């Protein structure tokens, strides 16, 4: 019998906890507490409405119009579903951008998570100076979507960049990575993978939460390192893996800065780095087709929402919460 399925007598039924909380205090106190809550919340709430929610709804409206930025709002024409129709039927570069983005996310995200988990496992041990290494591995992701980093990358992976100098020591003639349509996107993937620090830190935190007793028990049962990893670490870590997977997938799809800098904002060479968001930006700001770009943004939002929903629905089968609430 599995441990997690054992009923726990010390634990009150979660439903009764909530019921108890609801009974607590009189209605008036709750009301004024609620009001105070909203007052404290208001700076954030106003920001959310003004900077996010309202513009977002506006862009939904714009996605059904031919808005071109320069024309005043009042003269915008309603075009129905024309923008969406064009996207799905008459815009090859849109689908090209979709392909580029999917390729990027499908390769870079799993590799980044694997790198993050691998290094987290190494850094989870009590080595001397392990704190220093944690800091060092985390450093690249602090630089995040920085423009400076992308510029460094371009210069490192040029024909006469540092990476090729390194290769030439071993007698290998490198490629002009960032300027080669067959390699430019891969170069961006390497950049994304290299910034594995953020998921790594979360993995580390997750690893710290795994009770050592479980390992002790497993090793008493005769489980080796690999089996311990497979049967203890992975299941215990699955909520964190899930979290990182969803987060990094969304991040991966939204990749913009590096592609923008590497290609001078054009998605080149030969559209090889034309990520979805970059295509959207070019459509909106260079081609001035902001209505169409808004439609792209909404399809993108829906696609990510659907993808996330799929993650959540499949999560039941492989994500284990040790409190057993999800059974």
């Amino acid at each position: 019998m599995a441990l997690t399925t054992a009923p726990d007598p010390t634990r009150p039924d979660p439903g009764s906890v909530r019921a108890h909380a609801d009974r607590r205090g009189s209605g008036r106190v709750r009301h004024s507490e609620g009001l105070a809550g909203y007052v404290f919340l208001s700076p954030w709430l106003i920001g959310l409405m003004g900077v996010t929610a309202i513009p977002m709804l506006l862009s939904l409206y714009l996605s059904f119009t031919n808005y071109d930025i320069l024309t005043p709002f009042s003269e915008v024409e309603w075009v129905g579903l024309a923008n969406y129709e064009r996207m799905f039927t008459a815009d090859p570069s849109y689908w090209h951008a979709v392909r580029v983005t999917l390729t990027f996310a499908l390769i870079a995200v799993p590799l980044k998570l694997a790198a993050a988990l691998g290094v987290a496992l190494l850094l989870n041990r009590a080595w001397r100076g392990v704190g220093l290494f944690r800091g060092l591995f985390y450093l690249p992701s602090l630089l995040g979507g920085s423009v400076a980093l992308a510029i460094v990358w371009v210069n490192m992976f040029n024909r006469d960049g540092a990476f090729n100098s390194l290769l030439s020591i071993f007698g290998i003639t490198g490629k002009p990575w960032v300027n080669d349509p067959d390699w430019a996107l891969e170069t961006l993937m390497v950049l994304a993978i290299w910034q594995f620090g953020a998921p790594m830190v979360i993995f580390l935190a997750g690893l710290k939460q795994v009770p050592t007793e479980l390992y002790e028990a497993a090793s008493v049962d005769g489980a080796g390192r690999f089996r311990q990893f497979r049967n203890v670490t992975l299941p215990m870590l699955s909520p964190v893996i899930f979290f990182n997977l969803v987060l990094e997938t969304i991040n991966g799809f939204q990749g913009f800065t590096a592609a923008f800098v590497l290609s001078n904002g054009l998605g080149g060479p030969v559209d090889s780095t034309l990520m979805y968001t970059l295509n959207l930006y070019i459509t909106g700001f260079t081609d001035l087709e902001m209505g169409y770009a808004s439609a792209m943004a909404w399809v993108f939002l829906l696609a990510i929402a659907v993808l996330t929903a799929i993650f959540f629905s499949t999560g039941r089968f492989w994500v284990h919460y040790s409190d057993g609430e999800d059974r």
Partner: protein
Amino acid sequence: MHPATPPTTNAPVGRSHRTPLSRRRLLRGLLAVTVAAPLMFGAAACGEDDGGAADPNAPVKLSIFWWGGDARAKLTEDALALYTSKHPNVTFEKTWQANQGYFDKLATLTAGGNPPDLFQIDDNYLAEYAARSTTLDLTSYQKSGKLDTSKFPESLWQYGVVDGKLVGLAAGENTQGLVYNKTLLTKHNLPEPTTGMTWEQHIAWAEEVSKKTGVPGTQDPSADYKALWVWLRQQGKDLYKGKELGFTAEDVTKWFELWKSARDRKATPTADVIHEGNATDITKQLVVTGKAGTSWVWANQMPDLKKNTKDELGVIAYPGDPSAQWARASMYWSVFKGSKNKDVAVDVINFLNNDLEAVKLLGTDRGLPSNQDLRRVVNDGTTDPAMQQSIAVEAELTQKFGKSPQVPIKGHSKVRTELTKAAENAQYGRATPAQAAAQFIEACKSAIA
């Protein structure tokens, strides 16, 4: 059965009630926030539409926006300060930035209902803005003499007319210029190229340069609309005719084939280096990075190019008959249609173009001064050797210039990027010239539709 496990369960399970639960809540909460994270584009806009100011002495703050480097900023600020000293009620709110991203910013400012009263623009975008009635029609000011173009070459101010409206006034004149590395040629005893060489002669010359120096003789300009444009005009075609393209797929195929043969003969660099040089950034031009013998630029960019290299540079016209080139407005000043200070803005444009002191201050930074009388004064006073070269070649070409083409139409910026895409497809060998040309024509049709 697990004989050893039961005793160890109590403590950890008891503890894990709270921690994993709260951890899980935290994770879920974080996820919810992230998933809901905004993917928003679009901005609110509100137009302001008022007439010109009534009282001529009321204080006016005029916003002005241009692209360029530090040097241009200094010159422009000096000229504007001069205006303020003559009209103390007028002060300026100056904004300037690098060329890359300038038009994104201008579009965003316009959308935000906060566009500058006066802004710099070029022929790549003039029609886009004019077609959307963002720019003020300056015709009435020109007729009343408040905007004096009497000393301008006729074809130069006409190059600011879109759909019968004068929507931008030339801030200077330039033309296509082929810049070559003089030092490289002298070192290897190679002849300098000259204006009037045919395209075939140019490529043969470049092949020779590649052989003797090891540096590819010329940048491949097949992705460059301004080179294609000159070449088309020499074939009796044009970039645009009315609202249509002025060329066919066959023309573009020939153009791409011309440069394919040049690449095959090693007259040009490899595709990845060509791609580097296709960036509009001055500092990346192959003639200054030493990766090719020539670059295809605008003649007034000579001084900026010279700042980025120790080598001596020379400048001539693009190959073929130079009458395919024209007196192009290097950039324009345009006034925002909804500006509250239209009259003042127009007066400032007039001042920057026709006041001797102002024009002297501005020099040739935005191209040769549009006012020909003042141009002579400024040219004589120029001391920068690179600028003198640029002036010399333009003075020579002025005798040969052909008629100005129409200003590129709405959709032109897309046409430009599509040309780059198609040409690079051919350069990297991913498409034949004919395929690339067909792809380009197809994309253009939807761009200018």
